């Protein structure tokens, strides 16, 4: 397709994001000003989101050969943009307090958002790879953004090496698939597989998929490719961690759902078996690692491993219900995670992030508002009724039941109980007697932005728990 024949409106969200990052870069070149570039970033993210709301359609069209823009993609793009907006709002206060140069962060944030947004509308290996790498490369620098912190550097190099390493796996796998099928388009691969599936899939194809799963599994942070998660979560600045937990993983989940749907993954026992093993391992490993952990960021990292395992249940269930469940779960999961890391960001001081569980002791008595938000988020992660997390989990189970994935459902139920333990542990600590602690010097004005963001997130999260039907209908609308 020639450039001139591409309908600009089709890819406008992407173009807007690109433009925004360019404007951000230019504005840095002219004058460094944190407030200005923050305004540019939030403004453009908001603009993209409003555009998506106004022009969002649920009819699907393709921009050959790379992209397909359909309701699912549009919905998740909106979610991603909104999450980036929230992350960017949380970032302002966080970076304002630190002496590092802050401005480049926003360019990287916009680029990473772009990468993730491209990922969710990909229908081709090339766009998959490019979206993924834009996201990854922007993230390397974001993770290591606070250069003076050893932990941040360490997390950055770990993330970089492992990401590049697993990208190599992904690429090699894609090459094998391409060598076997002669196409890099998801749909064509599916057609090819259909045509040969009678005498079993060719080994080369299976090997290709296996190696691709390594790359994808890394990005999702599922077992056994999960080991980087806690270290990177711990080392990265809190807003960046929020970003990794949500936008980065979410984009990959959606891509996986799309790919899996196009190749009719449920029909191939090998693929289903692989993902079943991964899902079960992730749930158990994530939860078991979390139970004795005392670092809140790491607890959330382990919990995210388990949550991705839960998500794979709906993914394996497939079908319309499965996709709905994934979409709903992602919304709830995004809201809660950004909220939880937002709380960590608020409480962090210049030296280090508030990650030790002792930092939260007696929080209810010093900062009742923040503690309430955090409690709400943790309850949602634990899946307590009347939170978004509960409805999400319920949705997952419903989709699993309809696909009769009994083993996975039982494992999910068992793990929900295990998970309860460590979420409640944090809440219990917050209700504890406060240790003699000098009240955190929260800078009032900065703090206000964060607090408002967090309160909005919590209200949304509870709203989707009390009245999820509006969102469910909206999702169903988009997925038609």
């Amino acid at each position, binding site marked *: 397709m020639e450039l001139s024949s591409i309908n600009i409106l089709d890819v406008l969200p992407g173009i807007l994001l690109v433009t925004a990052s360019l404007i951000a870069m230019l504005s840095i070149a002219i004058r460094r000003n944190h407030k200005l570039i923050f305004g540019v970033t939030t403004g453009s993210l908001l603009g993209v989101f409003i555009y998506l709301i106004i022009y969002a359609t649920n009819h699907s069209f393709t921009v050959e050969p790379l992209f397909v823009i359909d309701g699912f993609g549009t919905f998740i793009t909106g979610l991603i943009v909104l999450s980036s907006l929230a992350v960017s709002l949380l970032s302002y206060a966080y970076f304002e307090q630190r002496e590092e140069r802050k401005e480049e962060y926003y360019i990287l944030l916009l680029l990473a958002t772009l990468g993730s947004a491209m990922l969710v509308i990909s229908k081709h290996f*090339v766009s998959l790879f490019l979206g993924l790498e834009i996201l990854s*490369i922007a993230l390397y620098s974001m993770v290591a953004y606070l250069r003076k912190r050893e932990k941040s550097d*360490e997390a950055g190099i770990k993330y970089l090496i492992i990401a*590049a390493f697993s990208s*190599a796996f992904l*690429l090699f796998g894609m*090459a*094998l698939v*391409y060598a076997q099928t*002669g196409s890099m388009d998801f749909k064509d691969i599916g057609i090819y597989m259909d045509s040969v599936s009678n005498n079993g899939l060719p080994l080369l194809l299976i090997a290709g998929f296996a190696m691709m799963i390594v790359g994808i599994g890394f990005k999702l942070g599922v077992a056994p490719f999960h080991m980087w998660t806690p270290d990177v979560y711990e080392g990265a600045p809190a807003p960046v961690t929020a970003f990794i937990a949500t936008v980065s993983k979410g984009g990959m989940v959606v891509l996986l759902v799309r790919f899996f749907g196009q190749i009719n993954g449920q029909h191939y026992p090998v693929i289903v078996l692989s993902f079943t093993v991964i899902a079960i391992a992730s749930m158990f490993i994530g939860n078991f690692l979390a139970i004795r952990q005392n670092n809140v960021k790491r607890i959330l990292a382990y919990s995210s491993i388990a949550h991705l395992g839960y998500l794979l249940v709906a993914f394996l269930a497939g079908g319309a219900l499965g996709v709905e469940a994934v979409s709903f779960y992602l919304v709830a999961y995004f809201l809660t995670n950004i909220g939880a890391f937002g709380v960590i960001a608020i409480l962090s001081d210049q030296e280090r992030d508030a990650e030790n569980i002792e930092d939260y002791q007696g929080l209810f008595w010093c900062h009742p508002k923040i503690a309430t938000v955090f409690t709400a988020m943790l309850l949602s992660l634990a899946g307590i009724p009347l939170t978004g997390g509960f409805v999400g989990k319920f949705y997952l189970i419903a989709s699993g039941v309809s696909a009769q994935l009994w083993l996975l459902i039982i494992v999910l139920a068992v793990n929900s109980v295990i998970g309860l333990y460590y979420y409640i542990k944090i809440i219990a600590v917050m209700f504890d007697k406060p240790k003699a602690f000098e009240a955190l010097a929260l800078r009032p004005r900065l703090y206000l932005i964060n607090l408002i963001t967090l309160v909005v997130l919590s209200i949304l999260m509870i709203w989707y728990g009390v009245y999820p039907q509006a969102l469910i209908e909206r999702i169903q609308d988009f997925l038609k």
Partner: protein
Amino acid sequence: MNEVQTVSGLLLAGILFVLGLVGVLIRRNIIFMLVSVEIMLNAAGLAFIVAGSKWAEPDGQVMFIFILTMAASEVSVGLALILQIYHQLKTLDGDAANKMRG
């Protein structure tokens, strides 16, 4: 002029890929790890070119170019980070970066 079997090309790519992998696993020096990852990415690129040649399509080479782009950015960020780490830790030992664990 080209009678080279695709299989041979893929085999070569596979061997190089595993060699790169060995490099990542055995070297403690972060620069060596980065170099080894480059070898793996290069091997993946080779595999794409082989596949492209098999189907007589330019897509394989296109993908190779994108891999090249990615490898270049990867290396530049990686080296910047290594510089930073060397200033912080005064070492290039990958195993020394284990402040975070558990």
